[in-house]
């Protein structure tokens, strides 16, 4: 895969609510590179959730261009968007969103169902991924038999089982106590370093955001700061919010363990210790 994992240029999103149009995003330009570790922070109502939905291919921009995995989302049908999400994005939610009556193993295997894989292959991949997040011994447990931290790790395994380019995590520690939350963040950081999957955290928690290598701050639907704005100057930038507080483009900080060839070709190879 060449080029950035996700590229947004002058992206705006407007909703029609009871005939009144509400602007949630006013024109955001940003690029998520392969293997990056980014935190998007901002108060509620700042548009960070809307941005995450757009970056994750759950929604389409009202204005601007959005490329996910190198593909322009404009004009894609719902089915094509679904395929794009399945191929490129892994989601982790604050409320875990696990299927209640379904075992950890089958929860993790769920995205592979929509990829059309057979049951045997699904289970093998899901088992490997569960082992990788340290839940090899909990495969047959239902969500209600697991702690919050364990459930979120199942959700992370589910997000990664498709070997996505980007993992989008929306307040992944929001429902966890601080120790468990820290462990989940460590897991995400390790997966980022070991497998090269880009991790994008959306959070309002400054401490959580501080752990990421790059922080993007949002307010009122615009990016007000980006600690690692893309180095390349874009002469053809559309007339949108290069927000006032934007720092000058920083030099590439050199991301360790980054793989440009694509994330996690051999899920079983890494993190073997954690699986046992």
């Amino acid at each position, binding site marked *: 895969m060449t080029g950035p994992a996700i590229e947004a240029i002058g992206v705006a999103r407007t909703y029609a609510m009871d005939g009144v149009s509400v602007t949630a995003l006013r024109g955001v330009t940003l690029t998520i590179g392969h293997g990056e570790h980014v935190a998007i922070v901002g108060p509620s109502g700042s548009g960070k959730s809307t941005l995450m939905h757009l970056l994750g291919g759950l929604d389409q921009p009202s204005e601007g261009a959005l490329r996910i995995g190198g593909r322009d989302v404009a004009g894609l049908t719902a*089915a094509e968007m*679904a395929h794009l*999400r399945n191929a490129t994005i892994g*989601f982790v939610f604050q409320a875990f969103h696990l299927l209640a009556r379904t075992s950890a193993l089958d929860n993790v295997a769920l*995205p592979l*169902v929509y990829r059309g894989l*057979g*049951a045997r292959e699904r289970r093998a991949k899901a088992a490997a991924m569960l082992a990788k997040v340290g839940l090899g011994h909990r495969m047959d447990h239902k969500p209600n038999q697991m702690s919050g931290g364990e459930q979120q790790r199942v959700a992370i395994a*589910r997000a990664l089982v498709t070997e996505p380019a980007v993992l989008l995590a929306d307040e992944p520690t929001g429902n966890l106590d601080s120790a468990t939350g820290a462990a989940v963040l460590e897991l995400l950081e390790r997966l980022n370093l070991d497998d090269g999957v880009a991790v994008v955290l959306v959070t309002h928690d400054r401490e959580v955001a501080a752990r990421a290598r790059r922080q993007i701050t949002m307010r009122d639907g615009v990016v007000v700061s980006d600690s690692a704005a893309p180095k390349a100057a874009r002469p053809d930038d559309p007339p949108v919010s290069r927000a006032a507080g934007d720092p000058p483009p920083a030099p590439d900080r050199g991301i360790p363990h980054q793989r440009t060839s694509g994330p996690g070709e051999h899920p079983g190879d890494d993190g073997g210790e954690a699986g046992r």
Partner: protein
Amino acid sequence: MRLAEAWRVALDALRANRLRSMLTMLGMVIGVAAVVILVALGTGTKNEVQAQVEGLGSNLLIVVPGQVSLNAAPAVSRLDQSDLDAVIRIVGSRDRVAVSLTSGESVRAGQRSAFTSVLGVLETTPKVFLRDLRTGAYLTRTDVETGRRVAVLGDSVARGLFGERDPVGQQVTIAGVRFRVIGVFAPLGQSLGVDRDNEVHVPLTTAQRLLATKRVDAFAVKAPDAATIDRLGDDIVAELSRRHPDEQFSAVTQEQILGALGDILGVLTAVLAAIAGISLLVGGVGVSNIMLVSVRERTREIGLRKALGARPRDIGVQFLLEAVLLTTTGGLLGIALGIGVSLAVAALSPVPAALTWWSVALAFGVSCAVGIVFGVAPAQRAGRLDPVVALRTD
């Protein structure tokens, strides 16, 4: 998503709400069972009527005074012996003409008595109608011409008066007059609620003397073949009308009788089928309703599945299969119930029931169709849900 996977998910969802699924199915169970039972009873009744009408004999023509109509009272006959002779002349053979003069009379043997239909007839009756004897012999031409007091008993009359004894050679009293029993009919059974074994045949002349009348009530003519029935009927009616200018006569064939009965049964079946159809409709609306509830309850699950890569079609198919699974499971249970009830009714009551494979296939097909028709709207709604909105739902 593979279809097998979708089936598994649908089955899982139904199992998770066992009671609700079963109650929803109940509507389908009742509707489908009703279809199977009603078709079985309708077919059984029709088969029986057909067998009975055809069992009378073939190529028959019944000639009666008045008009044959469901709401007309039977006309009093003014036909007599000379009309009989005229009909025999037209037909060209006495053996092809049967006649009856019917009266309800009390028949007694010793201490026992029975109220039966006494029919004054010609010796030709067994040649026109299919009537077998269990024992003894039928009337002879001499019996008829000399007005002998001999009688042939129906099976239930014979059993009622004589039990297991052989009645042939015994005496019975009909309206105070003694008759000698010369034969007993083989049993025929019920026909449209009438016991056809509860009748006594005596020579026409004897009956006329007994009832102090010269009349005959009706003729039955056996045509040589099917092609001549209608013309023969027209000729006879024309001749009788010429002889009795102020009266109407009707000649009806077995086909017409079957047609008339078929019409009645058809209306009855249509009404019952409409009731069954309404029941299926109500069941379908119930399925639709429950599926909408299910879509609403599982909005977050739908959002999650979409986020993970489910296409609108995958979600739609999942919910459609759930609806179809509900209705077809209900349909199969309904078929089982319908077959059970049909067999029980046939075994425990005189109402006939004939199960037909096509009614079972129809019932199953209809339950599939109800699932599809009533499942489409909820499935489309689920498929079209916006994943962002769906994920936000609590």
